[in-house]
């Protein structure tokens, strides 16, 4: 029993990362109506700016700032592509476009960052916060979970309680109507892309030191993040948060059982499948089609 508890706690690090990136994915979807596959890659681009600057000998915090600016710029650039050419496209087309962009970003990123070679990743928040069930919960993982909660609360308040939030919701749900009402659709969209770019970059900077430090593995963190977002049906921030952490814990638990362990990385896919089946359970064939 204790082994399982230890394994579950060990999964928290991953869970916090999935939750945080999942919440970012829901934020993007609710505001600009795009299932964004490039989320983690945008953050990774910013993180690698930080890495290359610190490797070149620049001080840490100014480099962090430069990294966040880069992440914001990449976010806005992708937002520009999406709003300029695919504003009126359907949700699945947009998702497909971001998936294609992800492939491109990974290819360019791997080339520019020297492929599989590891980099010296500065730890922004070193040390461990506390010990639970024999596992050190690091400052970084405590912080990712904390940030995920904070972002969840802030997003809920922002979307439901402010005028800009209202405009943004209108923008994703009825873009035409919003434009006719005088909402500056494109500018707002680009703003959202920029903000999520900045935020995911900061998130990735915290997550990256605990992960394999190369462009592809960091970019592919988007898969469990989207699985978490799906648990919240791309609507509920709180369910996404819980889903992300649960995914991490599930992975931790799976590593103690040898039979399941080798299929551990398939867990997000199983979760996606289960959620899809569950959410469509009442849909009739004709409707679902």
């Amino acid at each position: 029993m204790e082994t399982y508890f230890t394994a579950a706690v060990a999964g928290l690090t991953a869970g916090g990362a999935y939750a945080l990136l999942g919440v970012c994915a829901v934020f993007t979807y609710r505001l600009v109506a795009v299932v964004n596959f490039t989320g983690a890659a945008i953050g990774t681009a910013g993180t690698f700016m930080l890495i290359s600057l610190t490797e070149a000998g620049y001080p840490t915090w100014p480099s962090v700032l430069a990294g966040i600016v880069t992440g914001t710029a990449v976010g806005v650039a992708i937002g520009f592509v999406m709003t300029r050419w695919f504003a009126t496209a359907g949700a699945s087309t947009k998702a497909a476009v971001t998936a294609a962009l992800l492939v491109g970003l990974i290819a360019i990123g791997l080339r520019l960052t020297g492929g599989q070679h590891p980099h010296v990743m500065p730890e922004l928040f070193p040390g461990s916060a506390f010990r639970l069930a024999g596992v050190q919960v690091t400052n970084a993982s405590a912080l990712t979970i904390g940030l995920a909660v904070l972002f969840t609360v802030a997003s809920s308040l922002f979307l439901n309680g402010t005028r800009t939030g209202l405009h943004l919701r209108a923008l994703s749900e009825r873009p035409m109507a919003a434009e006719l009402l005088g909402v500056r659709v494109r500018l707002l969209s680009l703003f959202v892309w920029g903000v999520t770019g900045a935020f995911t970059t900061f998130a990735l900077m915290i997550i990256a030191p605990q992960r394999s430090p190369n462009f592809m593995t960091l970019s592919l963190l988007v898969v469990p993040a989207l699985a978490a977002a799906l648990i919240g049906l791309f609507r509920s921030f709180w369910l996404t948060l819980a889903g992300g952490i649960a995914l991490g814990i599930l992975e931790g638990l799976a590593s103690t059982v040898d039979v399941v362990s080798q299929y551990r990385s398939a867990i997000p896919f199983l979760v996606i499948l289960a959620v899809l089946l569950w959410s469509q359970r009442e849909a009739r064939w004709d409707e679902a089609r």
Partner: protein
Amino acid sequence: MNWRSIFFAAPLAALAFAATAATASAAGPTCPDGAIKVGAVSTITGPADFSEVPKATKAAFDALNAAGGLNGCKIDYTIEDDKADPAVAAQAARDLIDNKEVVALVGSASLLDCAVNAATYNRKKVLSVQGLGVDAACFSSPSISPVNVGPYTLSTAMGYFATKTLKAKNLCAFFIIIGGTQEAYKKSIADWEKITGQKIHLLDLTLPFQGDLTPYVIKARDAGCDAVLTNQVEPQVVQLIKTVDAQKITGINWLFLAPAYTEQVAKALADSKQPIYAGTEWEPYTETGAEANAQWIADMKKAGRPLTAFSQGGYLAAKNFLKVIEGIDGPVTRESVTKALYDMKPIKDPLAGSPWIFGKAKTHSPMRSTKVMKLEKGAWVVETPDFVVLPKVN
């Protein structure tokens, strides 16, 4: 030309001289159809880039050609990119064998050349002196004999080092299993058990290629491992040690294979106090002052190639191959090269700890020794000045 290059060029010149001298006494190798054609199939573009291996082979052949060739015969070397695509790899091998009519393959290094093409090489009776055997098929085919130790034998050797030198009592092994490598890794641990008479404390074949490693390092700690052997590659090595440090684990020796032995890993883990060891396939390439590396370094510098472990493999493949065809009397053809490789005597080269041989065995894994490097303050230092040589498995 400074004194250094003169000094290093001397053995090459001597080789060329010896080759010329041989003509006078015996027939030696001849090439009535022009240059001797040799090829390599390598992954160059795609998920990995192994081109450093065949490029070093080419550098060695170029040096020989510049010195007049082997008994007057030049080597015409073709490198084909398999793009890590089985169809392209098969096409590349067919092109080299049927169109280019190569006498042998030398210095290949690929993610899948052995797995895809071993059957073709068997059928066409073309032998491959693999510069860097990667997949399991490179070590289990009658037509391929790699000049590197390879991940499987190296796992056994690193385990042997842990038991013999580090006095580990509870060796644990965590392996990433990709493709059909599971049986080969299981066998490497079984061999270690036979050699040392110990039982593996914990064998985990489920290490993920990506994902958080916290649960695994906790598992190793709670199982009471005092040495952990893994086959992780560069970025995962860094991730593992960072995770171990984050969990404040002490008292475990961490043993890695050759992919961990890079300067980037050393730099990324400069702050870690963990005891970290890595096996090298050959004489450690970072030991630029070592006598065993002298000629390789001289030839690589002349060709403007970087000094990497990969280039040692390519270079060694070329040297061993040349040694074998030097002994051929008469025309160098596919048949005469194959026969010479079958009948050859073991070749001992200072770059490697074991003598290399082809021979007629059903499988070839002649290299059974490694040096071990230890990571200290951001640099790799030699832990075992002599090669750790694996005893025979009974």
